[in-house]
């Protein structure tokens, strides 16, 4: 793939499209490439954490640090694959898999109680006490039929999040 401001060839676009399972159209990929080059200011082929944080809307997001770890060192192809879960063409399964990955930081296929607590802490900050957080999480887990010390796997997530319409999209503007 060419370096920052060079144009994408048709081969490049098709390769990226293949890699993201055709969740983006070719025009959207070109648009994403322009955005990638815009964010990658020093042109080193990937977007550093600082460059992501220079987008204020991203920096104020409670899950930004978590996402930064997932975005670390991605080249353009992987960047598009990362965003593929947010395409309107992505299936609900893709979206749930993405959400699972956000929780499963050590990538062992299991989301433990602590993993869920960590994400809840990111989302609520200092506005709920640690004790209350644990309490709430334990309660809702038990109600859904899970023990506090059991770990959830992907199929559990699919069961919990699957039924009602999961809406997770980001629009790619075409110039």
């Amino acid at each position: 793939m060419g370096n920052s401001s060079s144009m994408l060839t048709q081969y490049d676009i098709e390769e990226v499209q293949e890699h993201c399972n055709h969740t983006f159209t070719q025009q959207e990929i070109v648009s994403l490439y322009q955005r990638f080059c815009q964010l990658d200011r020093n042109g080193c082929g990937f977007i550093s954490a600082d460059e992501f944080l220079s987008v204020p809307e991203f920096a104020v997001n409670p899950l930004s640090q978590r996402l930064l770890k997932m975005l670390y060192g991605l080249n353009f192809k992987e960047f598009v694959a990362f965003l593929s879960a947010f395409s309107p063409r992505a299936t609900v399964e893709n979206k749930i898999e993405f959400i699972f990955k956000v929780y499963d930081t050590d990538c062992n296929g299991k989301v433990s109680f602590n993993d869920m607590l960590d994400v809840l802490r990111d989302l609520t900050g200092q506005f709920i006490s640690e004790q209350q957080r644990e309490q709430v999480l334990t309660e809702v887990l038990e109600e859904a039929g899970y023990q506090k010390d059991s770990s959830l796997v992907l199929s559990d997530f699919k069961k919990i999040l699957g039924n009602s319409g999961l809406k997770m999209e980001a629009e790619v503007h075409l110039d």
Partner: protein
Amino acid sequence: MSTTGKLKSSSSELDFDRPNIEDYLPSGSTIQQEPHGKLCLRDLLNISPTLSEAAGAIVDDSFTRCFKSNPPEPWNWNVYLFPLWCFGVLVRYLILFPARVLVLTIGWMIFLSSFIPVHFLLKGHDKLRRKIERSLVEMMCSFFVASWTGVVKYHGPRPSIRPKQVFVANHTSMIDFIILEQMTAFAVIMQKHPGWVGLLQSTILESVGCIWFNRSEAKDREIVAKKLREHVLGTDNNPLLIFPEGTCVNNHYTVMFKKGSFELGCTVCPVAIKYNKIFVDAFWNSRKQSFSKHLLRLMTSWAVVCDVWYLEPQNQKPGETAIEFAERVRDIISVRAGLKKVPWDGYLKYSHPSPKLKQGKQQNFADSVLRRLEEEK
């Protein structure tokens, strides 16, 4: 202008400058989950709204758009257009550019040979000295404008020199200052720059009266606010020109105006500047190029064409806060110059957003969870 990549956390003092961001962002962008009924596992695990916001920001965001310098569309890709364009390049670089450098050199020579003697010889006669220095600076700015073949159309009444008034304008490049200065000798408040620009600032601009600030110093704001107040109250000082955006924006958008200029208790005269991009893009992308390179680009283009509107002076309405006043004036300027407004502080170019914004979102979510727990009981 320092272009280091290191961002630091903004000082808490910058917080008070911002009106509630939620008032600006479109309603769809806040976490919109309607809490109803019992809290269940799904509600806690479903982080899709937050993730959608993050992904939306990664894909496009209104802040970065303000500083995007759009490269001109190439039109020279044809058999007959290309030689025409080459001919244009030759004219611009080999005829126009040397002529402009000549004009500028002559201007500098006239200016320095008049300014330096006047500055030292008329030390005792301050009023006369300042009057002459003022005219000389205006003249030098005219030479600058001529060196880019500036075609500036001024609309509205010429600024009058009265006490207790400040002028505010939108900011695209440092040449904004030069374009306005050639009509009226304003005093200006600027970021202290290194290099030859800094030298100019400390010698010549001192004569029209300038206030320096340093973005990177937190305490600086209070010192500068004091200096502003002193200047405005002085009867003999040149009218003060302020760029409340605090940074250069690409002339398609305006970022939030800092309230400092709007709480001085004096009349605010808005000035709108709009550049015609067909001739040259006058946006100085300080992250991408030095001021010298920027000037060089202007001097090798055909012309700098812009419109300047001096708009009706505004006073703070009773019951209006300084921030509301600032936003009202920003609205006036944006409408006149055809610019879109974005709800971001220009200083976010140099520092991270305040943690309060993130905490606001966390608080919202936390409150909705706690509320639903209460509902169950």
